């Protein structure tokens, strides 16, 4: 039965996350935007609270670890529609990012590496790595969007895989407990040979080299990590060690089906922050949307606000759709990319336009609008750029292979 309102049972979680964002993240938002590389200690308390909530079963999904694809349950088609962990995650993350995207990304034990473990790890691995704060290391100096061409290698040597290579743009790479590293078992075998490894901090041969200075999400640290003959146990390879050429890139890429709706959620949250404040500031300036009347017969500002709200709602519903499909165990790679593509470009347009609409108030550091306009840009880049999402959507819609549509 079609209904696109927020599910009733997840509204308390959504509202809770909103309160947390308002009362814990917003007050320190500007502080850690200015103090890049300083660890926001306030987050320890918050992370402990989120852990407590998850353990009590009261809620899930304030962070990235909430996503799960539980394949063990029966897939009986007659079963009731599920509104589960994936929906909870996107709704929770959107609210937290309404607070602050950079701080959400810095939340202990809620890293994108945790999503990878949840997505491709075996049950035993999920249990072993539970409670770990894991960041994600994919990008290399010479391989960004083209993640199949990574050069970091993993060679089985007796009782361990030996990792060698350099990873950049590792979110929370310095602060996390472990890093999920993408490496290839055999560069000649292409995509199927790419596997992910959980490398705990302090493993000999692993070193954090540098922290980036960034345009936005400055509260979140972005590290460069080098691996030199770094030995990790074989059971730290997530999923199966077999090089299944038939499966192609699917194994490692499955992570993205789960993380892309989360990034869409970040964009939805960040854009909502800008929209909420701008709506307020415009109302003070005497501009209020009349939803029943044609936009063209209202002020240009009202018309722009209406267009932004429509695009925002579009991105949010695409985000909910992708998460709903995951909850109901339907393949959602297409919908995940659609959500991220729409949300990414929407967030850029919305946050930048809000700065423009609010004039110098929007541009000044006296308000947070300029910060949101800086924060939003990364959301159209990481976990697959706008163009990568378009490529994925196009290939799926047109039924073309990556060799045909490059």
């Amino acid at each position, binding site marked *: 039965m079609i209904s*696109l*309102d927020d599910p009733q049972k997840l509204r308390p979680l959504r509202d809770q996350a909103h309160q947390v964002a308002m009362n814990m993240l917003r007050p320190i938002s500007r502080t850690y935007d200015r103090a890049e590389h300083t660890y926001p200690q306030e987050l320890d308390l918050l992370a402990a609270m989120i852990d407590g909530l998850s353990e009590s079963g009261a809620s899930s999904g304030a962070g990235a670890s909430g996503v799960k694809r539980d394949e063990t349950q029966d897939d009986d088609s007659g079963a009731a529609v599920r509104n589960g962990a994936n929906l909870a995650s996107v709704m929770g993350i959107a609210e937290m990012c309404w607070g602050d995207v950079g701080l959400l990304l810095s939340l202990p034990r809620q890293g994108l590496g945790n999503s990878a473990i949840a997505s491709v790890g075996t049950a035993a691995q999920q249990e072993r790595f539970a409670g770990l704060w894991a960041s994600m290391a994919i990008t290399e100096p010479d391989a960004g969007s083209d993640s199949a061409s990574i050069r970091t290698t993993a060679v089985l040597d007796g009782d361990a895989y030996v990792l060698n290579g350099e990873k950049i743009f590792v979110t929370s790479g310095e602060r996390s407990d472990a890093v999920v590293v993408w490496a290839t078992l055999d560069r000649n075998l292409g995509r199927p040979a790419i596997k992910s490894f959980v490398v705990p901090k302090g493993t000999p041969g692993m070193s954090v080299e540098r922290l980036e200075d960034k345009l936005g999400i400055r509260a979140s640290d972005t590290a460069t990590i080098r691996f030199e003959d770094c030995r990790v146990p074989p059971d730290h390879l997530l999923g199966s060690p077999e090089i299944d050429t038939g499966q192609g890139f699917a194994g490692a890429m499955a992570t993205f089906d789960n993380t892309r709706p989360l990034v869409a959620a970040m964009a939805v949250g960040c854009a909502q922050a800008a929209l909420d404040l701008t709506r307020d500031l415009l109302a003070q300036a005497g501009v209020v*949307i009349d939803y029943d009347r044609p936009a063209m017969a209202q002020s240009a500002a009202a018309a722009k606000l209406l267009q932004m709200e429509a695009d925002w709602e579009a991105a949010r519903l695409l985000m909910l759709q992708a998460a709903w499909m995951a909850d109901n165990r339907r393949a959602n790679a297409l919908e995940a990319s659609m959500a991220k593509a729409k949300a990414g470009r929407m967030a850029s347009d919305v946050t930048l336009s809000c700065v423009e609409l609010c004039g110098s108030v929007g541009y000044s550091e006296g308000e947070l609008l300029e910060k949101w306009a800086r924060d939003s840009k990364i959301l159209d880049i990481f976990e697959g750029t706008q163009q990568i999402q378009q*490529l994925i959507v*196009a290939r799926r819609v047109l039924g*073309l292979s990556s060799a045909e549509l490059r």
Partner: protein
Amino acid sequence: MLLLKNLRLGSHPGGRHGIAGGESRDAIGYAVAALNRLARSDLLDRMGLRKQTEHAVFTLTRGGFRTATSAGRVFARAGKRGRAGHRAPHAPSREVFDLTPTDDEQMLVDVVTELATEIVRPAAIDADAACAAPTEVLRAADEIGLPLLGVPESLGGVSEERAVLAGTLVAEALARGDLGLAVAALAPGAVATAIATWGTDEQQQTYLPAFTDPGADAGVPAASLALTEPRALFDALDPQTTARRDGDALVLDGVKSMVPRGAAAELFVVGARVLGGRGDPPGGANVLVIVEAGTAGLSVEADPAMGVRAASLTTLTLDGVRVPESQVLGAVDGTTYAECVRLSRIAWCALSVGVGQAVLDYVTPYVKERQAFGEPIAHRQSVAFMVADIAIELQAMRLLTWKAAGRAAAGQDVARDVALARRLCAEKGMQIGLDGVQLLGGHGFVKEHPVERWYRDLRAISIMEGGVLV
């Protein structure tokens, strides 16, 4: 002489032929205008220089032929004046986020999709040219009960509760075949739905039997919900058509445009601002009024447009049309009118989603087959990304429309949901229409392919008010 006089009268050419008011004619302009006039006069014909073409008495393919509305069947008064009509209950509020139609809705969509594919699409090109829907298309739509979709079982219809979602899904599925024909087929249902949703017992008993039990010969009457008016920046909530109170009667004056099947319609629901009553708010309030075709003062004129042509669009003129006060449909405080505007906009959004899907379905195989530079054009990112964006925005349009429809069915406030859906469907729908033609290049510009029709049709979404209703 006459020619010159006409020309002089026309020394300010603005206001006609798409010329703005500030233009004036100079000497060359007069000469050219005179030539033009001569070319059009029957002088050439009398001299046998041009083949004569026949004009039908009422032609739908061009404007200018005004006639009285068709006086069709007699609607025998029945039911109790002033007694509230039957109401379909609101659908229950849903607690779960879900994108799955009910089994009934899915069955309906399957049937309508077949109709759209097998009957509507093949008829679309000729219907577009003729500005008329073929009888068999309309009959097929009537047979599967489309006009009754918004009428509850208790009134002889098919729905158990407010069938806003079913109506939305049907509009989408039908427009995937063709927008103009979809509007033509759904127009009677808009009037039936309005009367079922807001009518008094008398109104329901008087008018609904024609739709629910029309008899084999007569068929479901053509009927039309007329809300649009012909002026720039038209605001549906500010109609200039007036309903002046005069004793127990209302006197209607004004002009309605984009009225589907107006020449054939036997019944209209017209939007107007009611004035002059003691109880009316100052400045009046917007109301819906049921007007039977054939009422004195009612005239209709063909008004073919850029698209939606198969719906036989007309302009309806109301000149001192007197109807009993009891013909007001629903509340007189403007709330029914506003609700009707919103529900009609949901229907237009659904139609745009259907047309958008038709575009995507059409360009997908085309760009994979069309070769350029030694490979299918789909292998180029500039082409493929256009298709990706169509798919992304189309799905967003669909979700916004479904959300508005679901909330409307449950009786929730939908002003914002409808505005957002309409905004996205208008903007992205038009972009899809543009890209559909662009992806076919020159081939998209000729009528051999349907994308040029969809381009014309999709421009309608942000303009149309009324005509269809869920």
